């Protein structure tokens, strides 16, 4: 791993292809679609989807209605739950459990939470997932929107402000929930989500749309703020 991290930038760009070609990898897999990151950052592609996240192991909950989910996310499950930028492997004490944050890269447009939880032998039904990532914008961008889809309900925050909520039993649809017009700051912007699943499959996808409702490519995704 250390050697890999010292590879040249060009090699780093090629790394995902090498990892796919070589089953012997240092990356941890979470099912068939998620792996632990092996590069310092990723960049959103033409479709704009955010490919890198920190995921907290699931918290048992019940309820998908707006009122149930809103009450759920307002409960303090762990310290600094609306401000923490956790490190990979960091743990949180939640009720009587110790839950771990995992850094993941997704190979697809979406983040498959079922793969995530199932691979960790954690429950996938009636659970709450917390997710965090950092979107680094090369410049201030006004009139952008955070556009998400989730299975099932989810609530989303940008830089601490709640900007999207979708509720009830639903499947992930690209751009299902869309925020009002927002401003992405130059530099790091924290995107945080709470995704609640009732039963069955669970996943989410998220991207930013520009002022013309087109996906924003070229945003650098990291899991820690620059020093």
């Amino acid at each position, binding site marked *: 791993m250390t050697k890999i991290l010292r590879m040249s930038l060009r090699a780093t760009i090629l790394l995902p292809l090498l990892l796919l070609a070589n089953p012997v990898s240092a990356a941890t897999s979470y099912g068939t679609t998620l792996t632990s990151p092996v590069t310092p950052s990723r960049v959103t592609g033409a479709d704009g989807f955010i490919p890198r996240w920190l995921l907290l192991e699931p918290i048992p*909950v*019940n*309820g*998908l*209605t*707006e*009122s*149930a*989910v*809103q*009450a*759920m996310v307002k409960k303090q499950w762990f310290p600094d739950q609306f401000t923490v930028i956790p490190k990979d492997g960091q743990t949180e004490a939640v009720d009587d459990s110790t839950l771990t944050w995992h850094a993941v890269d997704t190979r697809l447009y979406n983040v498959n939470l079922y793969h995530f939880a199932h691979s960790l032998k954690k429950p996938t*039904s*009636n659970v709450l997932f917390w997710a965090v990532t950092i979107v680094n914008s090369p410049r201030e961008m006004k009139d952008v*929107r955070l*556009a998400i*889809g989730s299975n099932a309900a989810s609530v989303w925050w940008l830089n601490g402000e709640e900007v*999207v909520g*979708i*509720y009830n039993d639903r499947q992930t*649809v690209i*751009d*299902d*929930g*869309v*925020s*009002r*017009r927002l401003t992405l700051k130059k530099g790091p912007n924290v995107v945080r989500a709470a995704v609640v699943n*009732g*039963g*069955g499959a669970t996943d989410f996808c998220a991207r930013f*749309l520009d002022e013309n*409702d087109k996906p924003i490519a070229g945003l650098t995704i990291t899991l820690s703020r620059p020093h």
Partner: protein
Amino acid sequence: MATMLAIPACARALNGDVGIHDPSTITYDDGKYYVYGTGGGPLVSDDGWTWRRGTVPSRTGAAPDVIHIGDKYFMYIARGYQQPKADVMMIWSKSLDPNSPDYKWNDGGVVASSDGEEDSNAIDPGAFLDPTTGRLWLVYGSYFGYIRLVELDPKTGMRKDPKSKPINLAINCEASDMIYHDGWYYLLATHGSCCAGTSSGYNIRMGRSRHVTGPFLDAEGVDMIQGGGTELIGSGQRKVGPGHFGLLDLGNGVQKFSMHWEADLDRGGASVLDIRPLLWKDGWPVAGENPKEGTYEIHSVHTGTSLAMAVEGSPVGGGRMRQGPGLGPIGVGRPGAGQAGGTRGARPANGGSSGGGGQRAGGGPRPGGGIFGGTGSPIADQTAASVDANWPAGDTGASMENYQLQAQQKWQITAVPDAGGYPGAPYFKITVAGTDRALAATADGELVVRASFTGTPEQLWRLDQLSDGSWRIMPKSQANLKDGMALSAIGASFPTLSKFNAKSDMQHWLLKTP
């Protein structure tokens, strides 16, 4: 007059003084719409909805047409003798506004004639500028013979070659006009008898051709020169005898057409101007409808979801839902039963069952029971009154949802008197059915549902039927908003306002019976 006032505004053919016969194509000049009819009969409007008498031009006659090319407005108008001897005369002005220093009608002269012997009656001119070639054409004629075509000079408005022989295009019709769309030329003409009030047989028919010179075949393949013609619009809705088609292209993919009704029953059988949306289907024009008051589901073509007030909905008839995996058989229960955090808005509506295990409303268990067995009796429509106790009292947001027949998903569209309008229709308010909660635009280009309707411009809506039959919905208020902002389904669950783009279905909405 009292009868007229009692008629809902949206059911009328326009508003104000709209008496006219044989109207010209409606022409826009410096903020006003102008239309001219037989005997002068000009009308003018600031918004295309409310009309008033205009200024009679220097020459009057029968059934004029007007076209704007460059810095000139060319008017073609018939000078009749003893039919079928007639001339089509041209006059021109640089403005249609009598208050403009450029307003002055100049005589151009004769551009087409019929000598009284030939199979032609040189009246009812219709001017057409070919968008593919820039060539200017004039169709004219009536029942005494052929509908004919001659070429004009777009710089002068006069006949390009006075010695050229007119081309015969159609028979058994009059009041012709031509338009171009997607590789086809369309000849629109009026069939039936005119000038007979409610006995008029006027109706507008059409054929199309790949060439401006024809042949123009109708949808059945019959040449209009043999009497063919597919109907665009006939009598109906308390109005008789549509005639004298004129294209009103509002740009950005929105087209309408003008015409007169020979007799409008709501106006005592008078001949009146009207404007209708022009739709297209399978390569043919279709007469659309101006918006009608009523209760609708406002359904996004883009997402398949529907506009709603952003409140937590109440299942119609009470909740019956499938239980989660591993939680036992499918059954009837309160939505969210067993879920944390309560179920705001989930009280039963209209006395519908909200729980139980498959009990008939009137007694014993129904066959099968469970969610698939229903309640055993009809479930009433959900009204706002039955669920609004769960709704916040003040302003709320707007959302989009899978349509589930819930009260916050049904919208009442109502014309607002004296609030102005746009070509063909007045402004409307859009309220949650059974309430005064009004959809409104915000200054930052988003949407809100106000607790009550106050009549401010951001609560007034323009509804234009688009070429595919769906609707564009735009706020009257443009203050602090970009021009052309329309209701937009940017996400499956989120509506906003964004600049209208005819090529995107994000701003195409269906008004469906709820």
